[in-house]
């Protein structure tokens, strides 16, 4: 056996104490749903993990009513200090149950355990800690004295960072004094349901947090519910557009975190080894299921061949496989549906004339897998250079001058994130100024922090999550 094969190092699932079935979490209790329950499966094995209730319109009514009652009777009468203390409790409980949450997340989502363990769950705790402290300091949020909460927030989150997106939504909403009804994604409801248990352990007043599971129809019912004051959505631009239309004229406040097609720009004076790591982290982190993924590599023509060579060598050391193995770098694709989309777009890439490369990978028999893939000879007009693939697929394009790099980077309806790699400070700052993207990572990529606002320009959505800016999405005082 070669040393590099590393013996399996599976994370134990023994500490998981899952129930065979989960109901909806409404008004502080798990209750049955009136829709048809569904199984959530592990994308790495296709084996069912648990059955989960589906909320229909009547269940959404119940959940929103519970949130409304909790808002009127309890949460809005509580001091900011006490709201904060509940959030601190939640943060601590997340830390205490970190290992369990990480295992559940990897099991349900397919992401490598080292990511859920080292990135997702620590950030979840950090998010609650950060916003907990804001709860009694809203006067200093820059929205005037004593800003008012909006009321009931309806929140719909995606499957790529299930628990982290929940934290991004719930922590600022509660800190600002709102109550919430949150719908996790259909394929990844598990950690939200474990979070409901944490809410119970924290003794949060009933109805402040409600978790409703289900598919698109459930989400639609929530977004369209007339007693919801605020809609927050993270997901695809197509659905975001639909929600923006549905919300039009209702006066509901809206924030949207949508798709992206980020340019990761590598100049010829880049710190090359770190740039390679940044490119890999940019697109293969979380199987590329990242809205801010650096999916378009813009590399200066003079170093194109060298970068591609180094990239290929580096990709050959990526370990694709069992998400629960501590040495796995790239896990399973979240669903059969997503796998199909990645396959289709990759085939289109080949058909359009781009050159496809992947390292040799051995996959388990079952589950949804896609090898890390690089396309070279990609033109800006190719679909793989324009459409969000949301998978481990990198399109490599070239540029000759900084002006051309900026023009190509901005030539997209999206504007969520971008990367710059250069050792020249003045150029980094000038390029960062000109990129039409909400997050610009210079000489790094895919960094997240609760203190750091995140969100897009253009069709990547509007509003910011994180930082002081993230509070504005849940308080009166903005025009929007």
């Amino acid at each position, binding site marked *: *056996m*070669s*040393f*590099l*094969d*590393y*013996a*399996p*190092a599976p994370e134990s699932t023994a500490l998981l104490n899952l129930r065979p079935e989960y109901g909806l979490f409404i008004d502080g209790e798990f209750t049955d749903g009136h829709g048809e329950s569904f199984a959530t499966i592990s994308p790495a094995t296709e084996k069912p993990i648990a059955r989960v209730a589906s909320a229909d319109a009547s269940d959404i009514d119940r959940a929103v009513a519970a949130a409304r009652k909790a808002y009127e009777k309890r949460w809005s009468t509580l001091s900011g200090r006490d709201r904060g203390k509940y959030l601190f409790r939640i943060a601590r409980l997340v830390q205490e149950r970190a290992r369990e949450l990480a295992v559940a997340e990897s099991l349900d989502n397919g992401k490598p355990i*080292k990511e859920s363990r*080292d990135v997702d769950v620590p950030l979840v705790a950090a998010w609650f800690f950060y916003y907990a402290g804001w709860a009694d300091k809203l006067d200093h949020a820059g929205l005037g004295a004593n800003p008012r909460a909006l009321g009931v927030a309806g929140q719909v989150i995606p499957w790529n960072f299930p628990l982290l997106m929940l934290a991004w939504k719930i922590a600022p909403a509660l800190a600002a004094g709102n109550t919430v009804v949150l719908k996790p994604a259909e394929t990844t409801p598990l950690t939200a349901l474990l979070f409901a248990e944490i809410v119970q352990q924290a003794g949060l007043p009933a109805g402040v947090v409600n978790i409703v599971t289900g598919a698109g129809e459930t989400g639609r019912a929530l977004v369209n519910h007339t007693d919801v004051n605020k809609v927050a959505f993270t997901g695809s631009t197509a659905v975001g557009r639909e929600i923006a239309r549905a919300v039009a004229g209702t006066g509901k406040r809206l924030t949207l975190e949508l798709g992206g097609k980020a340019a990761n720009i590598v100049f010829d*004076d*880049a*710190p*090359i*080894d*770190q740039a390679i*790591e*940044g490119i890999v982290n940019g697109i293969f982190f979380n199987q590329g299921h990242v809205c801010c993924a650096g999916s378009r590599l813009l590399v200066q023509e003079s170093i194109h061949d060298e970068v591609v060579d180094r990239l290929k060598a580096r990709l050959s*050391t990526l370990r694709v496989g069992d998400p629960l193995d*501590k*040495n796995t770098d790239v896990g399973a694709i979240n669903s059969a549906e997503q796998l199909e989309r990645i396959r289709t777009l990759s085939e289109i890439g080949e058909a359009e004339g781009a050159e496809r490369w992947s390292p040799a990978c051995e996959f388990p028999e079952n589950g949804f897998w896609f090898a890390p893939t690089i396309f070279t000879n990609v033109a800006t007009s190719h679909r793989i250079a324009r459409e969000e693939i949301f998978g481990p697929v990198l399109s490599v394009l070239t540029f000759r001058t900084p002006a051309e790099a900026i023009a190509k980077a901005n030539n997209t309806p999206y504007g969520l994130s971008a990367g710059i790699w250069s*050792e020249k400070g003045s150029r980094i700052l000038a390029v960062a100024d000109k990129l039409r993207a909400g997050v610009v990572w210079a*000489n*790094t990529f895919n960094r997240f922090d609760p203190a750091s606002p995140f969100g897009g320009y253009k069709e990547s959505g509007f509003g910011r999550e994180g930082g002081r800016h993230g509070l504005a999405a849940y308080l009166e005082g903005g025009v929007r």
Partner: protein
Amino acid sequence: MTIDNAVSPAQRALAVLGDDVTESALKRYLEGLPGVDATGLEQRAAALGTRSIKAASKAWALDRIIELIDLTTLEGADTPGKVRSLVAKALVPDATDGSTPRVAAVCVYGDMVPFAVEALGAAHAAGRATEPGDGLVNVAAVATAFPSGRASLAVKLADTADAVAAGADEIDMVIDRGAFLAGRYGTVFDEIVAVKEACRRADGSYAHLKVILETGELNTYDNVRRASWLSILAGGDFIKTSTGKVSPAATLPVTLLMLEVVRDWHRLTGERIGVKPAGGIRSSKDAIKYLVTVAETVGEEWLQPHLFRFGASSLLNDVLLQRQKLRSGHYSGADYVTID
């Protein structure tokens, strides 16, 4: 006005720089290398450090760590007796387990080389190529006014030649950090070339030359990268992080960076250069992180004594404790391994 001092030609530098091996050409070349982003480098090293090495992989790793150790004593108080004791430990690391491999080399001051050679007896590699498991042990000597390097070139060369004549298979030299930090790359280059020449034995073969950068004094990663290239260009067989006398000594990010240089040199020339982190690596857990870093940066083939070494003393016993645990299934204690 600066006048280029033509530096002694070295084969590698000629191949890479062309005929123009001058102070200014070296400077241009080294300063033209891509920069290093410290945060990114440290993050990559930290990520490599999270690999979980279990079961058969761990057993293999523990034995291989022993086979890669330069078991070291570099004290002012060293005596022939201390060196004999060190050699005994090198030959029989764990008296309770005959399957324990021997270390790669013992590393001593130059005046202790004869005692080490004598104590090794037939196990002394004495210039023969070694393989893991062949039972042969090299003698490595620190030279060139180790650890500071502050002496005249003549003294450094004599120091080197003495150790080689006494039977040292490997010379661990220090670079002139003062000259390097002052930008006098030609001086550093010339000195390495000269020391390499002093490594030549009567039969025309060479003792292996490990070039110690003393990365703790070079301070920045850009300096470490330049010094690594400079040392390789001047003919070093190994690049080594530290003397162990300066803090910080070896760190995982510095070693990763040096491995990246070695990888790039191999891409450029097809030639394989060794890397030796030294100082501060005390636990098996840490040493395994280095093995992972080597394997994932330059490839597993580097995990051999002629391409990778640990400069260490207390590391050996921690590895032995871990081996005993793997064998017996329960945890061992310090009294169950010999102190030297």
